[in-house]
């Protein structure tokens, strides 16, 4: 049995868990290729026009996998923390995919509530039974997968550069180097180091959220706001770049909240969509870095 794992959306955060879990059940896992022009084009072709770039890219990954595997994992991540959502589009992701791409193999699309181990196991049980595994095997492989996941940290923390900037935004915009046109390497080449939200602890983020009038109900908002607000207040970096996708509903709110909070710090928002040109992006990054040098 081959299970396809699309390299899109929260893949970068959670692939160790999924891969280890399914391999533990005796299945083969097949990742889609890194995002490339083909995948992007396929995604744009299949997906509904109004969706944001990451969702379109995800569609492209699914389309590229559909003839190569028996089942495709579409993580319908409903909740990571208690009382928080990811994004409406994540809750309806399997439906978006199902209704946009034809001739799909079976989908592993059970809802994932990861706010507690018990709730997450519900998903594991349902997904595991689709593969015909028995409960013992599922339990073992679930525990192992959690271990593997706990050791995983996709974050970046550069130290040996002369200036450091905080890179904010949703993980799939930061770690998909095709989508963001290799921004981390570009910054590094300009002698600029990068730090991402994974290196700020949960308690600190929660602490920062108290400055808000209302508790944010998106996990993305908690992470981005908590991270950037803290790092700007402590002046741990020289500037902030926020990578966001065009028409992202969550970012339209989060960016405003962050802007309000980090008024004393150089702050640039890079908007990505399928038409973003590399030259324009380069110019903006260079100008931003020059500006930091001159300050």
């Amino acid at each position, binding site marked *: 049995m081959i299970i396809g794992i699309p390299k899109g959306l929260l893949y970068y955060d959670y692939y160790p868990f999924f891969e280890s879990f399914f391999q533990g059940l005796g299945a083969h896992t097949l990742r889609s290729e890194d995002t490339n022009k083909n995948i992007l084009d396929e995604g744009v072709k299949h*997906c*509904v026009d*109004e*969706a944001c770039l990451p969702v379109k890219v995800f569609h492209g990954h699914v389309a590229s996998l559909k003839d190569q595997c028996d089942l495709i994992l579409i993580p*319908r991540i*409903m909740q990571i923390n208690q*009382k*928080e*959502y*990811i*994004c*409406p*589009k994540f*809750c*309806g992701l399997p*439906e*978006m995919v*199902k*209704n*946009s791409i034809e001739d799909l193999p079976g989908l592993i699309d059970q*809802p994932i509530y990861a706010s507690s181990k018990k709730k997450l196991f519900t998903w594991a049980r349902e997904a595991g039974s689709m593969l015909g595994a028995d409960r013992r095997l599922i339990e073992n492989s679930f525990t192992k997968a959690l271990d593997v996941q706990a050791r995983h940290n996709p974050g970046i923390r550069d130290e040996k550069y002369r200036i450091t900037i905080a890179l904010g935004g949703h993980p799939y915009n930061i770690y998909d180097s095709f989508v963001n046109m290799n921004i981390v390497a570009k910054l590094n080449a300009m002698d600029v180091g990068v730090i991402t939200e994974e290196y700020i602890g949960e308690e600190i983020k929660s602490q920062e959220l108290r400055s*808000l*009038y*209302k*508790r*944010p*109900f*998106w996990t993305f908002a908690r992470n981005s706001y908590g991270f950037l607000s803290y790092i700007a207040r402590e002046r741990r970096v020289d500037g902030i770049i926020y990578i966001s996708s*065009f*028409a*992202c*509903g*969550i*970012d*339209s*709110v989060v*960016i*405003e*909240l962050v802007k*309000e909070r980090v008024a004393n710090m150089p702050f640039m928002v890079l908007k990505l969509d399928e038409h973003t040109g590399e030259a324009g992006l380069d110019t903006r990054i260079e100008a931003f870095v020059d500006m930091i040098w001159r300050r």
Partner: protein
Amino acid sequence: MKVTAPHFGNVHLAAKALFDGLGIEYVMPPMNNKIALELGSKNSPEEMCLPYKIMMGNFFQAMELGADTAILPGSCGPCRFGKYAELQMNTFKSLGRDLDFVVIDSPVELGLSELFNRINKISSHSKESRYGQIKSLLKAKRVMNLIDEIESRAHFLSGYEKNKGEAKDILSRCKNDALEASCPDQMIRVMDYYRNKQKSIEVDRDKRPIKIAIIGEIYTIIEPFSNFNLEDKLMDYGVTFSRKLTPSWWMKDLMLKPLGLNSLKINQKAKDYLPLGVGGHGKECVGEAVLAREEGYDGAIQVFPLGCMPEIVSKSILPTISADLDFPIMSLVVDEMSGEAGFVTRVEAFIDLLERRRANELPRA
């Protein structure tokens, strides 16, 4: 204290009734207009959705009329609406404008005591007794239900009336006269009068008008300014149409949600296509489309603001429903850049399409 609240379909009538009854000064923002939209767009994040921008405009215009306290309902996601208040508060603060916000959120989020605190902030300005306050709340609710009933009746009759334009005329006169009413009781009397008057509209029972369901994001379908008076236009075309989402439906839905008894029929119909809620009214949109087909409608029009997250999910599902059930559905996206002519052309073309389908159709099995 001068209270204001943003426009939300016909809610301004109920709000007027409520605050008149409570004896609190209420500043109704001017009906939604271009200037409100311009003011709003200028002072909103670029990628925010249209309802936010228009509401911002409402606040600015209400402040010009002397309002100092804004009331806004909240929600706890995952749709952006729940975060409106905070951003708006920040914007007014950075502009140095004094506008107090009272955000009415769900008691689960706030805790009951905080909710009562916030309500008290307003109701303490009322001279009425507790009993009188509850009475005016009930009257406001009655106003809400009445206007929604009259409106949906007018939408139904516009396809069947013998004298073209009568249903629309009565509806618009009802809204105007209700606004002139001096007290809640009079407003209710005015509405009762027009409700009776609707019964005297002559109908042609042999007519088979085109029937359309309006689905989509609630603000953009109930707020005529945001959809270029779509409903007035449909009434002009002599189409019969219905819209399940109304402010009174919304209240009821909100109350029943904790019990899981809200909109049972819609949710049940949505199940095959979208089993889980995606925030906003994305699931309702899908359920209504299926329901509209079963109830014998000819087609459905979905309206939503650019970037609306829940409706993007439902939009990607609608083509499948359309193909599965042989049911035409058109999606219209609105924002501050939308042009009226393009919008109207699409609506007219859609109605033409439905008429031609009718002309070629075989009797439905």
